[in-house]
């Protein structure tokens, strides 16, 4: 089948004409399917939105209950038929509620991955491989220099630093949806039983994770008067706060940042990070290549990230690949700003 039978790229994003729906549109549209709650994929102002229950709840928390006119939830594995196109959602392993979306029409099936990862994450359903004829993938870390190490080892690095510098506060920058809660859970699994302190911008989503039954232990919001007293403690905040005046009140803070970008030294230095923690919610190069192979798809579209490298790799594997260069995806700084405002 040709992928373009089912999907076309429009200025608003990927569009399935047969079902008359957009996927993760970057502009307001009448009908949208949303893979997950990150602000570059899930925007407010659409007409009808179809997503997992968790993703709808997250959008409600971020944008208010009236973020669209009509909501409909679909659980993992369930399907719905829109104008002869069968739509189903499958775990993407990216953040709580994140889904890959499969569209199945008479000529074949396509899976739109959204963002995904295959590494261990105790805070969301693990990635499920869905075989398909065509695969639309992200490539945030689509360069072979990105090989994410075991996240537990990175958390151990953080705990070691806490032991070496008990007189300093450890500030960990982490995206407020998904990364922050994953780091908290990994800290608990590594035996950190002290309270974990959070910036106010992380509060709503973290509470939501707890309400969904993910036990993160004693989580406390940092107040202005606490800051100077938090020597030896771990504090999570949105990445943008690391360089903000807010961080300066802590006792001699060590600035850590949990992100796949930390694999590259220049990136860490650019942000003035002293303790880079390579913890990513996206697939690394090896998992990206493996997933493309395992889906069995013969046609690959790459939504965003290092498209050129993965397209080149696909070609060496005899796969038909095309970069989409979708603007507005993967814009983490934009997300940070949005969260800081929240």
């Amino acid at each position, binding site marked *: 089948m040709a992928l373009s039978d089912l999907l076309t790229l429009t200025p608003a994003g990927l569009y399935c004409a047969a079902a008359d729906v957009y996927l993760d549109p970057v502009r307001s549209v009448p009908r949208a399917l949303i893979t997950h709650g990150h602000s570059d994929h899930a925007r407010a102002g659409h007409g009808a939105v179809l997503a997992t229950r968790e993703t709808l709840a997250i959008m409600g928390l971020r944008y208010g209950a009236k973020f669209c006119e009509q909501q409909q939830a679909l659980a993992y594995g369930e399907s719905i038929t829109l104008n002869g196109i069968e739509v189903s959602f499958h775990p993407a392993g990216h953040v709580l509620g994140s889904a890959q979306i499969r569209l199945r029409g008479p000529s074949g099936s396509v899976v739109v991955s959204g963002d995904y990862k295959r590494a261990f994450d105790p805070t969301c359903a693990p990635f499920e491989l869905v075989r398909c004829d065509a695969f639309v993938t992200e490539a945030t870390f689509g360069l072979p*220099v990105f090989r994410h190490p075991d996240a537990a080892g990175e958390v151990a690095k953080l705990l070691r630093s806490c032991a070496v510098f008990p007189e300093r506060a450890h500030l960990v920058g982490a995206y407020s949806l998904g990364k922050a809660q994953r780091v908290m859970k990994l800290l608990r699994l590594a035996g950190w039983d002290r309270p974990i302190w959070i910036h106010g911008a992380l509060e709503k989503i973290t509470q939501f994770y707890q309400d969904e039954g993910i036990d993160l232990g004693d989580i406390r919001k940092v107040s202005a008067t606490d800051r100077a007293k938090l020597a030896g403690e771990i504090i999570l905040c949105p990445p943008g706060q690391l360089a903000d005046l807010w961080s300066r009140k802590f006792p001699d803070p060590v600035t850590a940042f949990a992100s796949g970008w930390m694999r590259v030294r*220049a990136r860490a230095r*650019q942000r003035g990070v*002293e*303790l880079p923690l390579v913890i990513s919610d996206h697939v690394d190069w090896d998992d990206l290549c493996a997933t493309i192979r395992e889906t069995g798809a013969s046609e690959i579209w790459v939504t965003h990230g290092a498209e050129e490298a993965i397209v080149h*790799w696909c070609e060496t594997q005899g796969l038909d690949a095309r970069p989409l260069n979708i603007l507005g995806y993967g814009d983490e700084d934009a997300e940070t700003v949005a969260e800081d405002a929240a």
Partner: protein
Amino acid sequence: MNRFAQLLDSLAYEPSRNNKLRLLADYFRVTPDPERGFALAAMTGALSFAHAKASLIRALIAERTDPVLFAMSYDYVGDLSETVALLWPAPQTERRNIAAPSLSDVVHGLQQADKKELPQLLASWLDDLDETGRWALLKLITGALRIGVSQRLAKTAVAALGGKEPNEIEEVWHGLVPPYLDLFAWVEGREDRPKALDPAPFRTPMLAHALDEADFDKLDPADFSAEWKWDGIRVQACVGTDEEGRRVARLYSRTGEDLSKSFPDLMEMLCEPHFGDATIDGELLVLIERQVQSFSTLQQRLNRKSVSPKLVMQYPAHIRAYDLLAEDGEDLRELSFVDRRARLESFITRLGHPRLDLSPDVPFDSWEALAQARHDPASVGAQDETEAIEGIMLKRRDSIYVPGRPKGLWFKWKRDPFNVDAVLMYAQRGHGRRSSFYSDFTFGVWKGAELVPVGKAYFGFTDAELKELDKYIRNHTRNRFGPVRELDFSTEQGLVLEIAFEGLARSTRHKSGLAMRFPRISRIRWDKPARDADLISTLEGLLEQGLRRSPPKGLGD
């Protein structure tokens, strides 16, 4: 190797000089000889390995990766060693039980291995090390650590081990060899100061502060002497006699690098018997028919691995002296500037060598007169050398020679730059720290209805301005060619940049036929329409008039 790799890794992330110093001092304190000595050698650039070249590393990784993916990765990471360290595939065979090599193993291995054995040896080390270890190893053998540690900082950390002054290390340094067992023994108080004193030691130069024109109110012209600030490179020429009566001559850069090999013409002068024992502080320039050449001509002589007789003939080197630090074994640094200057003048007159002359005194009786001299050097006797003059140096007449950058003694007062309004045409992603930003800007001026590129600038803007420029570029891209973006520019739209530059020269390498010296962005003209940017004829006119500057501004405005 692992402990050294961890040190380099932490240094690379540590922004503060004091914390770097602490990390270094801690490392030297807990690491045994000879490991720490080799580390010191690595950080001061005292190690070099004849056969270990970047080309060897490229060849090794080329056998193991797809060339296109390598090129894209390298472009992204911006650093060969780091790219290879990250890309290096996990070894095929199980090598878990093999201990990672120590720094001493690596140094000895590299010194002993011949050219044929080296690829295999290096590959096996890379297999045995983790990512940080691989990165450090590759940095070490390519001789480009770039961890924000200067020679000076490393020596300061060694000095701190035993409460010594950094300058004390400097004065014994050039007689020492890695792994510096005698140096550490002396600093830690276990042995006497190393005997092998260098007869031609590098002396940390005295540096000037940039002059703030508001300072003039507080300064008395009578306290100062003025000289031209030459557009060359600062050097120190040292000649001494060792205990066995052999004469030793060296030419140092301002950071203490030994440049002797690159300047056989100057070394010939220094080695002449009647030169005597002396240390001269001066500017290295190229003179043709007694006239100073531009910096771009001087560049023909810099950073050359081999120096051909033809090159030496074509671009003869010269020292224009401005200070005398030692003479016949006597340290003159405690004398006042005026007294040292008198000694220097008689030294130069006595020697009468065509490759050495005196940087002339610029007479002035008021700050206004000096401002006029700075604006128009030709009016006070600089004649045809105006283009090689960057500005004015002011030195307190009673100042002793203080290593480093003491306050209130020496000032530099640069000439105002030239300015041109140009239109941003292309932008390229930066390397390394700026790899996520479009930070290399090509700009052009109007030639009729067309824009012709006249230069490229990488700096001159703040971090906040860089973000704004980056955003503008992403939103105004017409075409993408790999890492380069072509912007939307026309008479109707485009971003005007005010470019400051120090000089202009004809160039066949650029389409416009012009090359700028030291261009940087002085202002972003968000307000100015592209059609109002400057014309190429403006720049050509400037060149034809011999780069005359616009009239001077009054003092303090």
